[in-house]
Every structure is written in C-alpha cells, then in structure tokens.
C-alpha cells in the first residue's frame, strides 16, 4: 500500500504538515507537489499522478470525448474539470452568432460534451468566459500545490501559484477524463534565479524574454523551471503568470513560482477559493510548498536585471530577441551552424536586413492580448502609455481582454474609453490573433507588434510577421507606427 505524506498527521498543525521522514531530505517545490500527487509508484514505471484540475477548451477536446464515447467510458470526475471557449471564438459581433461553420461546430461539440458529462462550462454567453489560462486564476480555480493539466501548451501559466501545471495532447486529455490521472516520469529541476530591481519601463515580459534568450528555446528541456530571486518575488501575480506562461517557449515541461503572501492575497475571496477555517488550513499547507532552503536543483541559472532593457523579437522563435535599443543581428554572428541557419531563414521570412535599428522597423498592426499579457494589470499598464496620444494612421490596433470579467473591470475603470479614443479596437475575450484561428488574422506581409508569446512563421496569419514585446511597448509602437523604446516616454 502507498503511504501518502499526509497520512500520519491526523490533526493538521502549522509545523507538521508533512510526513517527518520526508523532511530529512531537502526538497524542491517540484518534489513536494509531485510527491503529494503520486497515486501509484513502481520501479521502472512512470508515476501515476492525480490531477486536481483539468481545464478544457473547444479545439483540443472533441476527439478526446469522441474516443471516450467509442470506448464506452465515462468522465471519472466531471467536478474536477472546467471548460471554456477561447481559441476559435470571434471577438466581435458574437451576438450575431458564430459565422464560421467549423468553429461553430467545435463550440457546439464542447457544449454538448459538457452537458452530457456534467462539466461546468464558461460558455459563449457567460461573463466568465475567456482564455483558459486567464480564467483559472481569475476564478480562484488555480491554487498552490495543485497538479493541473490542460490540452494546451501554455498551461504552464498556472505554475505562477506554486502549482505543477503541464500541457498535454488530446489522447492524454482523454486519459485524464477517464482516469483523473496522468502517468509521468519525473522531470529534472532547473532553478532560474533573477535578482535585482526592474529598471523603469522593463516588465515581466522582458524578464521572461531575457531568460529565453539566455537559456534558449530548448534550454528547459525535460525540466521544470523554478523561477526565484528578488525580481520574481517582487512581481505581482499578473507578472508571475506572464513569466510562467512562456516556460514552454524555453522548452520546459512547466514553470513554477513559490506561493507567498502575494499569492495568498491574490486568491483570498475569489469565487472558488474556500473561506474561514478551511482557508486557514489551506494557507498553512501552501506555506510548506516552497523549496527547502538547502534543496538541490539539477541545474541553476542566474540572471542579473541590472541594465535589463525592454526586449523585442526580430526572428521566428522567442529566443530570437534583442534589446529595443539594439539592431537586427547578422546570421554570421551566431557560432552554432543550426542557429545561423535559423537566423538566416528567420530574417528572410521577417524581411529584415542585419544591422537595422529595431526602432526603425515600421509596423502595420498591433495585437494586445493573449494568455501572456491580457490581464487587467496589463490593460492598465498599456493605457498609461497613451496619455492622450492616438494610434498612428497607418496602424490597425486591437485590444482583446483575456476574459469577460477583465473586459468588464477595464470598462468600469474607463480603460476601454482610453483605448477607443486613442483609436484601438476594443474586442470581446478570446485567443484572437495570438493564433489567428478566427477572423483576427494578419494578411501576408503584414508586420505586427504583439503582446503574445509566439512569433513563429505564420502564427498570426500566413506570411504575417510578428514582433513580441510587452504591453507598454506594443501600445507605444501602435502610436509611433514603428517599434519604439517606451522608456523615452515615461
């Protein structure tokens, strides 16, 4: 029989939440959260882990429900699953219905599947609808110490709460629906320590882009990254989510940040968060989650924020970034032949000449949205840049709030008016032009300043050219009509 860490503790005390023998070995946060979810462990086999929350959206779930039905199986724990529509949903004119028949069919399939299996759905007309990784935290569904999965690679976002959160494919979605578990070999651990105050105009987005440039798009391979250090603990939950969100862009299995008072303050009072005595007990448990002071990581990387500048991407992967004061690099500046080949292909796709000052790059479109940067804090920060200025006449710019509730909150604060008066379009919540599955899409050759996470070829539309950056930088670019160093405006 399996001994769970908590079994000997009949009464929960603040000091002794964990099995005493487990206390001897210093543990990382990953170790602790992992151990607390092991259902079954056998030598030579992956651990079977219990899933606390399974997030579902319309694009990666229909085939899972279909196979489930074909094999005559039921959803084991519909109460631990939550669904929303985000990837394919239009962000304008929703009241007229969804005109794309394929997207409509997918959304209807999700509605039916949720109905049939008793899964809560924040559907098209629900104010709580939004990007799956925005609404989990917003509702207090995402909590420290959880094991969270979703058929989406940016599930890593939820790690900002000290949860272990990983993206899975559709077959594994089916597996989780049927068993509420996931078999996994334990990944390695990578500590990324970021220390120092963030210089003015430098954001969480710049921190994570800097980390990815440093360690590479495969630098987190087969590891869970723990972000730590004074810069990270100094971030709001929104900033921490921006950082963890892009862990997958560093090739990591997941990213995590230790829960602390900032985390607890964010969670307290949210709809799905317990109150009273149970809240106290949970906080006591959550306080045991951070890595032990002497825990050993497989690998450690230290990043200094002194002199950190806003980053913008010049290429077609998120490590191909440079300081906004920098220039488009020459492929010859890369020693590694594969990186050189990547850079050459990237510059061709992006239609950029080596040596061009980044601030000389003109843009056609601005996309302000996505699970990386569409929370209320992002919208506030972007609005502050405007100061009565207007979007450049040659630029089409849109703001797509991360959820219906973010949108409502922004409207209550008058942010929508600031954006609209400046010439931004103000849209309904969804993934929108982050992946361009709906009508929000770049035309071939269009160049876009984007607050999203992927600058892959064609990501925002075939032939479209994406430059990743922070919300402040994207708003400034919309106004200037070209990439610009927002610090000059602050």
């Amino acid at each position, binding site marked *: 029989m399996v001994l769970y860490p908590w079994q000997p503790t009949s009464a929960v005390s603040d000091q002794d939440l964990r099995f005493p023998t487990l206390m001897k070995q210093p543990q990382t946060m990953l170790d602790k959260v992992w151990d607390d979810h092991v259902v079954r462990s056998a030598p030579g086999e992956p651990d079977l882990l219990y899933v606390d929350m399974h997030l579902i959206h319309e694009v990666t779930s229909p085939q899972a429900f279909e196979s489930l039905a074909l094999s005559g199986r039921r959803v084991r724990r519909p109460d631990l699953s939550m669904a929303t529509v985000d990837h394919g949903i239009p962000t304008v004119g929703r009241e007229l219905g969804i005109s794309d028949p394929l997207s409509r069919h997918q959304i209807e399939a999700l509605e039916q599947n949720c109905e049939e299996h008793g899964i809560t759905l924040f559907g098209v007309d629900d104010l709580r609808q939004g990007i799956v990784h925005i609404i989990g935290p917003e509702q207090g569904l995402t909590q420290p110490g959880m094991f969270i999965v979703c058929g989406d690679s940016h599930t890593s976002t939820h790690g900002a709460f000290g949860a272990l959160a990983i993206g899975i494919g559709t077959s594994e979605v089916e597996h989780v629906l049927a068993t509420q578990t996931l078999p996994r070999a334990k990944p390695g651990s990578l500590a990324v320590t970021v220390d120092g105050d963030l210089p003015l105009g430098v954001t969480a987005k710049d921190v994570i882009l800097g980390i990815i440039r440093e360690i590479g798009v*495969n630098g987190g*391979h087969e590891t869970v990254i723990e972000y730590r250090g004074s810069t990270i603990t100094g971030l709001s939950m929104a900033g921490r989510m921006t950082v963890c969100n892009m862990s997958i862009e560093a090739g990591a299995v997941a990213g995590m940040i230790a829960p602390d008072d900032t985390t607890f303050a964010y969670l307290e009072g949210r709809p799905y968060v317990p109150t009273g005595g149970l809240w106290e007990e949970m906080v006591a448990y959550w306080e045991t989650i951070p890595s032990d002071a002497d825990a050993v990581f497989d690998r450690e990387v230290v990043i200094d924020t002194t002199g950190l500048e806003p980053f913008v991407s010049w290429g077609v992967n998120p490590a191909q970034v440079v300081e906004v004061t920098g220039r488009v690099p020459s492929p010859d500046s890369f020693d590694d032949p594969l990186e050189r080949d990547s850079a050459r292909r990237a510059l061709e796709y992006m239609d950029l000449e080596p040596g061009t000052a980044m601030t000389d790059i003109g843009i056609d479109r601005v996309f302000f949205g996505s699970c990386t940067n569409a929370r209320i804090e992002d919208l506030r920060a972007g609005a502050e840049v405007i100061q009565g200025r207007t979007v450049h006449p040659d630029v089409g710019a849109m703001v797509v709030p991360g959820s219906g509730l973010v949108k409502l909150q922004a409207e209550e604060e008058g942010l929508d008016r600031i954006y609209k008066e400046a010439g931004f379009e103000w849209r309904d919540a969804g993934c929108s032009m982050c992946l361009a599955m709906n009508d929000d899409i770049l035309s071939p050759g269009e160049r876009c300043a984007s607050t999203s996470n992927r600058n892959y070829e064609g990501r925002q539309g075939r032939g479209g050219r994406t430059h990743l950056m922070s919300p402040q930088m994207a708003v400034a670019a919309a106004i200037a009509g070209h990439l610009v160093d927002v610090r000059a405006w602050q």
Partner: protein
Amino acid sequence: MKPVSVVEGQMVPLPHANIDTDQIIPKQFLKGVKRTGLGPNLFYDWAHDEEGEVVSGFVLNRPEYAEAAVLVAGPNFGCGSSREHAVWSLADAGFEAILAPSFGPILENNCYQNGLLPVVLADDDAEEFAKLAADPANSVTIDLPAQRVSSGDFTASFEIDPHVKERLLNGWDQVDITLQSVADIDTYESSRPRFMPALG
C-alpha cells in the same frame, strides 16, 4: 494502438532546428472534430504557396521522397503548441518514425500515444542520418527492441524509457493500463486531506 517494433523505409531530411507544431500543421486545420484525414495538410504553408499551389521544391513534395516513412529532423522538433493534430497529420501522411536530437515535450508524448516513434539520437548521429537522407535511395531500419537505427553501414543506438518501449512494442493503450490501478486511484481520492486544494 497498433504495436511498433521494427520500422523500415525511406528517410526524408528536414534538419532545421526548432520546427514548431504551427509549421507541422497550421491553425486552419485545427477546426475539425476528427483525428483523421490530416495528412494532406502536413507542413501546409511550406508545401503550398499562397494560392494553394504545390511548392515542388519543398522536400516532402519531391516525387523521389514519395515513399518516405521516417522524417529526419533537427533539435527540438515539434516544439510549441500541444496540438496532437501535428502527430495525426504526420501519421496520416505515412510517417512511422522521426529521428531528431530532441523533441518538444508535448509532441514527444503525443507521438507515443499514436504509435509514431520519436527516436532521440546524439547530435552527431542525427546529422549523419540527415546526410544519408539527402540521398533518396537510402533506407533506414529502426529496431525498437534492439534500440538501434541503421542505414547502410551506419548504425547508431538510442535510449528510450523502458516502460514506453514496452507499451509501444505491445501496442498497449495507456487508459487500459491505468484503469488496472483504479483501486489505487480510489484510495488516493478517499485519503486526501481536506486542506489539499480541490474544486467542487
């Protein structure tokens, strides 16, 4: 899932680094509700021009590679999005294995779920196979039981998680395996303390 043991066939080289799943299957093909029929959309934007015409120079479109069953890719193949459509389209287009120095974490798992064999090779070995693949006359044999890949005189070995290997060799479905542990899942659920986070 059908068992995988020995894969034999033609290779096709696509040895760029960091080929993401947005390239393998672009977003416009994610709107379906079925796993089938995605093969023609594989690498769509590389294989077709903006008018939808076939790009004859793209390696997968070259007639001499029409029989390819093994893709030889660069490091971090299939990074990015979790879309299993990438694997479904590769399998539907006739691919049975991919050779690469490393894979995107979600794609690697998705491959295992579909009996598509992701073979992780040392950098030098992957490079050698990419060179060999440049000649369409060369075929490759991937021997999963022996954990060996060979083409002509060149042979390399590879590592694979023994549990995953057994599952592939037997064609076992992961849900079936896990459901054998249903008693453990019941025990876990019933012994979970109330301070552990939970919905509902």
